[in-house]
């Protein structure tokens, strides 16, 4: 895994999650990968080792767990391989 990507059901959850996670973990806002189609266009990228902490922070914030998913992303030769980690 190169990094973990949190994708959201809509833009408002994505922006809320960014604010919730920001300051607690290093996060980067990035466009949702084309390989992940069923989500809004804004995703939150976290380091490989941070995705479980991110998941816990979002759970504890009360965010509806059905409104986001967490994927692992591995990139090679310009092709991304994604796998569902949670959600």
């Amino acid at each position, binding site marked *: 895994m190169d990094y973990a990507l949190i994708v959201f059901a809509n*833009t408002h959850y*994505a*922006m809320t999650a*960014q604010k919730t996670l920001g300051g607690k973990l290093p996060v*980067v*806002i*990035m*466009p949702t990968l084309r390989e992940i189609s069923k989500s809004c*266009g*804004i995703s939150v990228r976290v380091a490989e080792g941070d995705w479980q902490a991110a998941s816990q922070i979002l759970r504890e914030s009360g965010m509806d767990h059905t409104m986001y998913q967490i994927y692992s992303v591995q990139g090679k030769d310009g092709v991304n391989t994604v796998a569902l980690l949670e959600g």
Partner: protein
Amino acid sequence: MAAIIDAKGKACPMPVLMAKKEIDGGSDAFTVEVDNETAVRNLEKLAQSQGFSAAVSQGEGVYSVSFCRSGEAPAVRQAPAVPAAGGNWALFVGHDIIGDGDRELGTNLIRMFFYTLAQGDDLPKAILFMNGGVKLPALDDQVAEHLKVLEGRGCEIYVCGTCLNFFGIADQLKVGSVSNMYDISKQMLDAAKVITL
């Protein structure tokens, strides 16, 4: 005796324009007096681009930049160490968000734009920040990181010094060169196309 140009108290880009006028008038040696380091850096850049040497001396709150024609041809801008895959285009950023519907959404869109640009192959030759756009390389950590990647890949990043001063954030610039209207307009005019955000 070499002319002395008093540009103290002149706002960017006046010192550079005054020096350029002296060069265009055929002068081989002259001195420009300014009162801030940004003007010194911009004058040094001008000297380099015009085939002059520039010697800087500092007195009490005054910098004297002595221009002397070096006899060398005006500097041709070197190709970046890692050539940009894209063509000769420039990106002009006049806002710190994309669009005007919602500020928070616009902030996220511009972060994603620079993320995507930094990951891609078609890179601009120059990225130019003015007005509210200068807040991005100064205050937005995420965009600044993407800009560092772009700079490392050969993009030249110019940030308007007047604008940084206006917002009081000149000391917070994280990436790019403090620049002026003279340089920024030249980059726009030299580019085959300019994309404006």
